[in-house]
C-alpha cells in the first residue's frame, strides 16, 4: 500500500522549500498588515464618533462571520468588475490581512479593556493627550494580555495561507498540487507539506509563549 519514493521526495524538495519561502512571506506580510490594521480598527471603535464606531464594529462582525476564502475570491474576482484589478499576491494579502485584522482588533480591544480605569485617570491627572495616554500608558499594558491571542493568530494566518492557492499564489499547497499533477504522484508532496507545516507551527507556538514571558518581565508586570 505504501510506496513512498525517496528519490522523488528529494527531487521535489527544492521546489517545496522555495514554496515554503513564499508561504512564510505571505504569512508574514499578511500578519504585519493585520497587526497594524487591527490596531487601527480597535482604536477606531473607541473614538467619540459613534457613527464611525458603529460602522467599524459592523464591518468587523461581518468579516468575522464570513469565510476567508469567500473574501479572497471577492477581492480577486469581483474587484475587476469595479475596475480594481489586482495580482493574486496583492489580492491575497489584502484579503488575509483584512480578515485577520478583524480578529486581532478584538484581541486588542480585550487587551485595552483589561487596563484598569485608574490608569486612564492617572494619565489624565498628568495632563497627557489622548495619543500620549494610548502610546505611553494603555497600549504597553494592553499588549501582554493580548500576546497569547496575537500568537494564536500568527499560527492561524500561517495555516490559512493555503487558501491563497485558489487564486494562484505559488505557496506550498499550490506547488504541491502542481508537482502532483505533473507527476501523477500526490503522496510525497502532500506528506512533505504536512511535515513542513508541523515543523514550523509547533516550534512557533513554543517560541510565542517564551516571548510572552519575556515581554512581561521586560515591562515589570
Amino acid at each position: 500500500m505504501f510506496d513512498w519514493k525517496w528519490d522523488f521526495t528529494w527531487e521535489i524538495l527544492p521546489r517545496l522549500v522555495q514554496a515554503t519561502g513564499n508561504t512564510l512571506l505571505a504569512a508574514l506580510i499578511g500578519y504585519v498588515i493585520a497587526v497594524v490594521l487591527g490596531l487601527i480598527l480597535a482604536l477606531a471603535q473607541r473614538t467619540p464618533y459613534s457613527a464611525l464606531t458603529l460602522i467599524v464594529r459592523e464591518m468587523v462582525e461581518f468579516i468575522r462571520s464570513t469565510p476567508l476564502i469567500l473574501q479572497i475570491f471577492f477581492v480577486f474576482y469581483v474587484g475587476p468588475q469595479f475596475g480594481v484589478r489586482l495580482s493574486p499576491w496583492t489580492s491575497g494579502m489584502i484579503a488575509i490581512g483584512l480578515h485577520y485584522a478583524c480578529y486581532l482588533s478584538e484581541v486588542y480591544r480585550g487587551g485595552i479593556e483589561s487596563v484598569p480605569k485608574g490608569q486612564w485617570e492617572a494619565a489624565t491627572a498628568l495632563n497627557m493627550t489622548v495619543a500620549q495616554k494610548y502610546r505611553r500608558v494603555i497600549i504597553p499594558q494592553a499588549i501582554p494580555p493580548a500576546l497569547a491571542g496575537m500568537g494564536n493568530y500568527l499560527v492561524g494566518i500561517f495555516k490559512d495561507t493555503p487558501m491563497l492557492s485558489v487564486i494562484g499564489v505559488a505557496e506550498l499547497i499550490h506547488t504541491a498540487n502542481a508537482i502532483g499533477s505533473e507527476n501523477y504522484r500526490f503522496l510525497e508532496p502532500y506528506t512533505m507539506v504536512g511535515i513542513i507545516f508541523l515543523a514550523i507551527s509547533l516550534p512557533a507556538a513554543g517560541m510565542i509563549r517564551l516571548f510572552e514571558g519575556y515581554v512581561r518581565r521586560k515591562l515589570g508586570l
Partner: protein
Amino acid sequence: MHDVSAFPLQIAGDPAPMVSFRKVTKSYGALTVLDELDLDVKAGEMVSIIGPSGSGKTTVLRMLMTLEEINGGVIYVDGQPLTHMQKNGTLVPASQKHLRNRRADIGMCFQHFNLFPHMTALENCMEGPVQVLGLPKKEARERSEELLEMVGMIGKKDQHPSRLSGGQQQRVAIARALAMRPKVMLFDEVTSALDPEVIGEVTNVIRKLVSEHNLTMLMVTHQMGFARDISDRICFFYGGKIEEQGPPAELFGNPKKERTQQFLSAVKEAV
C-alpha cells in the same frame, strides 16, 4: 448644556481664591451627587473633606481634576474658569485644549495609587515632565530624584511598582504628582488602602508638604486626627453639600449641626 450666563467670566479678588466651586452640580442619571456646591479654597490653604460614604467627597476632587464633566455651575482655578472658557464674552463649556491648559495647575493622588506598572518609580515620576511638559530628560531626572528623596523613596527608584509596598507606592505617586509642579494638590483617601503600620509614612510626607511648601491642598480623609492636626479648615459633606465647615478645633470641638455631631460621634465609636 446648562445655562452659565449668570456666572462671572473670571473671579476678581485680592488675592482670588485658588479654587472656587460656584453652584456646581453633578448627577448620575436621577442621582444628584453634588448639589449646587459652593466652595472656595485660598491659595496655600489645606482643606480636609470629611463626611459619610456617598456624600460626594471623591466627586468634588474628580470634578476639579476634570476626570468627568459637571452638569451645572462653574469651577474656577486661580481666578480663571476651568470647566468653561470665554468665547465672545460669555462662558461656554471647555474644549479639550482649554482643559489641557488649565489642568496643568492641578495634581491628584488616588486611593489605589494608580502608578504605571510598566515603569520604575523614577520613570513614573519622569513621565509627565518629559512627555507632557517637554523637559529635557536630564532635568526631569534631577527633579524626580529630588522628589523621590523628599518622600524617602530614592533607594527604590529603579523598582517597578509591583515590587513596592502600598505605602511606598503611594509615596512615589505623591512624588509623581509633585513633579508636574501643580498649584493645587488633591488627595483622595490616600491612606485608606494601606496597612495601619505604613499609614504614618504617607501622612508624614503630607505633613512635610504642608509645612514646607505653599501648595493649595484638598484632602478627602477618614483619619480625623490627622485632618485635625494639619488642616486649616474642615468641610463636612452631607448629601452633596457642605453641611458645616470651619477651623478644625471648632468643627471637631464644637460642631453646631446635628448631622455633624452624629457623624463625629459615630466615627469616634468606630475607632
